[in-house]
Each structure stands twice: as C-alpha cells, then as structure tokens.
C-alpha cells in the first residue's frame, strides 16, 4: 500500500514537473503576449494541482496536508483571477491579439 502511494506520488510529481517545464518553454518561445498568457496560466493551474496532490499523498493525514490544501485552494483561486485581470488590462490598453508588428504598445 505504501509503495502504491509512492508510485502514484511519483507519477503525479513527474507529470507536474513536465507541465511546469512546458509552461516555461511556452512563455519563452510563443510569438505573442496572449499566446504566452495561455501557456503560463493554464500550465500554472495544472501543475499546481498535480504537484501539490503528489506531495499531499506523501504527507498523509496531518496538519501539513491541510496547509497544502489551503495553498492549492489559494493558487487555484488567485491564479486565474490574476491572469484575467492581466489580459483584460492588456486588451483595454490596446494590445491587439494578432501577430502583426504594429501590435505591441510602447513600454
């Protein structure tokens, strides 16, 4: 039973690590702000769920598991909100979701 939990934990953590890396790669290499936004925010949420669930399995029933649950709840609540606010702000100030050179606003 212990080794089953360990194996499951290992799978979740590795998947979470893969998502994290893909998100970072996407944020660096995608061409436009809005596409990078997709990469960053989606992988953030997914990776948080996977990694924190993986650690929670290792922690068992303890105060640490409840704290991890709280961290997960806050990350899932604030991550998408921050992404929404950022994308909205960018759209309202004129950054267009296309790919032509006239798209980026001045710094």
């Amino acid at each position, binding site marked *: 039973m212990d080794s089953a939990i360990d194996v499951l934990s290992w799978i979740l953590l590795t998947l979470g690590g893969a998502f994290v890396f893909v998100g970072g790669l996407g944020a660096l290499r995608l061409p436009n702000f809005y596409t990078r936004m997709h990469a960053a925010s989606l992988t953030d949420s997914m990776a948080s769920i996977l990694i924190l669930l993986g650690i929670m399995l290792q922690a068992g029933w303890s105060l640490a598991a409840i704290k991890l649950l709280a961290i997960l709840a*806050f990350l899932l609540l*604030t991550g998408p*909100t921050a992404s*929404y*606010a950022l994308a909205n702000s960018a759209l309202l100030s004129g950054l267009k979701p296309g790919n032509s050179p006239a798209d980026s606003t001045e710094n």
Partner: protein
Amino acid sequence: MVILFAVFLLTLLVLTAVAIVRTENLFVAVMLTGIFSLLMAANFFVLDAADVALTEAAIGAGITTVLFLGALALTAEHEKSVSAGRWLSMGVVVVTTLILVYATFDKPRLGDPEAPVHLHVAPWYLEETPELIGIPNVVTAILGSFRGYDTLGELFVIFTACIGVLFLLSGPRGQHLPPDDMALSSTAHGLRHHLIPKVVGRLLIPFIVLFGFYVQFHGEYGPGGGFQAGAIVAAGIILYALLEGEAQALKAVPRSVLMGMVIGGAMLYGAVGIAGIALGGNFLDYSVLADNPVKGQQFGILVIELGVGITVCGALLSIFHAFAAREPV
C-alpha cells in the same frame, strides 16, 4: 544537492541584478526587483533560514513593489541619463569592491564548523533556550529575549522611518491630502470597476488578515513573528485599498487609527521594559513578569511581538496612504 540549488539561484540573482542596473525603464526595474526579492527569499529558504525568508517574502516581494509603483506613479518612468562623472563613480565602486573582497579573506569560510560562531555562540543559544525560555523557535527567542534591546532599536527605527516619510510626503507640494471624496478620476478605470478581481479579492481579504494573525501568534512555534505578521496584515488592507479605492480604505481604517497603531506598538514595547523595572528586575527583563521565570519570558515575548506587529502594520499602511494620496505630477 543544496549546493546545486544555491548555485542556480545565486546565478539567477546575479543575472537579475545585472538586468536591473542595465535597464533604463524604471518600471521594468521595479518588476525585476520583485523577482530579485523572490529569488532572495528562495535562497534563504534553501539555506534553512525560514524566518528571514518569510520576512523577505512578505515585505520585499509584496509591499515594496506596491510602494515603488506608488512612487513611480508620482514621477517619470524613464531614468534620466547621467553623462558627467562616470569614470569617477566607476573608480569609487571598483576600489570599494576590492577593499571588501580583501576584507573577506580574514573571515572563516561560510558554514565552517570550526568558526567561533559555531563553537561558542550558536551552541550556547541552542542549549540555553529550552531551559530559560522554553519555546521551540530559537530565532524568536534570540530576537525577542536575548537580544531584546536590538529589537527595540529596530522597532524605533521603523517608527522613525514612518514619521520621516510622512513628513516628506505631506510637504507643501500642490494638492496635499485632497478631500477623501474627490475620487482619483471620473472615468471608469481601475480595479474598482472589474467585478471578478473585486469578488475574489473580497473573498480573500479576511483570510489574509486571519493568516496574518496566525503568523503573529505562531511566531514562537514556527517561522513567524511580529515583522512578518505586520507586513501580511498590511498587505491585506492594501489589497482592500486597491480594490475598493483609497477613500473606502481610509473609512475602514482611518488615519487616526493608523497613527495610534504606529505609536501604540512602540509604546507597548517600551511599557514591557518599564514593567520589568517596576516589578523589580532590569529594563526588558521578562522573568519578573509572571510567577514562573519561564512563563514570564514567554509572556514577555508574546507582548513585544504584538507591539512589533502593530507598529509595522501601521507604518506600512501609513506610508502606502501617503503615497496614494498625493496627486501625480
């Protein structure tokens, strides 16, 4: 493995510092300073210094970024280019760096087990804390009790800094302290008019303040204490000010209450010291505060941490309101 983490984080730190210095757009510099602070806190964490990491997280990454942005809103965004005196500054920096590097040849290697701090100082504190004070967090014991004078000095430095900033920013400079109902602008702008961040923010603010109280009172058992708790509660109220407008936040926590907090916390700390004298001991001697010396120490640490937390929270909020109240140039 720790070495790998530390080297990686330190390399990123150097790169960020170079980027901060090289950019001339001040806003980019503020963003990179936020990243710098997060890296520093991760570094502290890897080196097992949890209290410092928590303080760096709460104050550096959150509050300092907000204050820098408030200052940027009042001034220009691009650095003025300096053309005169470059070689002189370069020369001074190089000479100072060489002197500092030469001075480090004398100190023991970092983490050397033969260093005096690991042979004499640290073991003394680690042995005496369970007997004399009886709390698990040795850092709080040192901060609160063994070196209580230093912490008193730190608290009064924060108090003085707050007063200094308030003097500077309330000077006769155009509109000073505009009436509270003259809103920043009549057009719909700002987070106040976006429903989603407002709802989520309202949901979170009670938890942030509650978490701040948890960190305050848990400082004796885990990483925490007055400085971190004050910063976290101030961050919660700053979030309220960002979402609902500065006027609402001033209605919720008026300036008189903030002034009372700043002064009251420092006075509380001093009062504990004087109570020590009144009950027969020395200044800031907590052992006489209760019938049992260990209980007295714990009670004393609790009260002074409360004083520290109150003053830090009041100071950070006062400085934030001082920045936010000025009309931009």
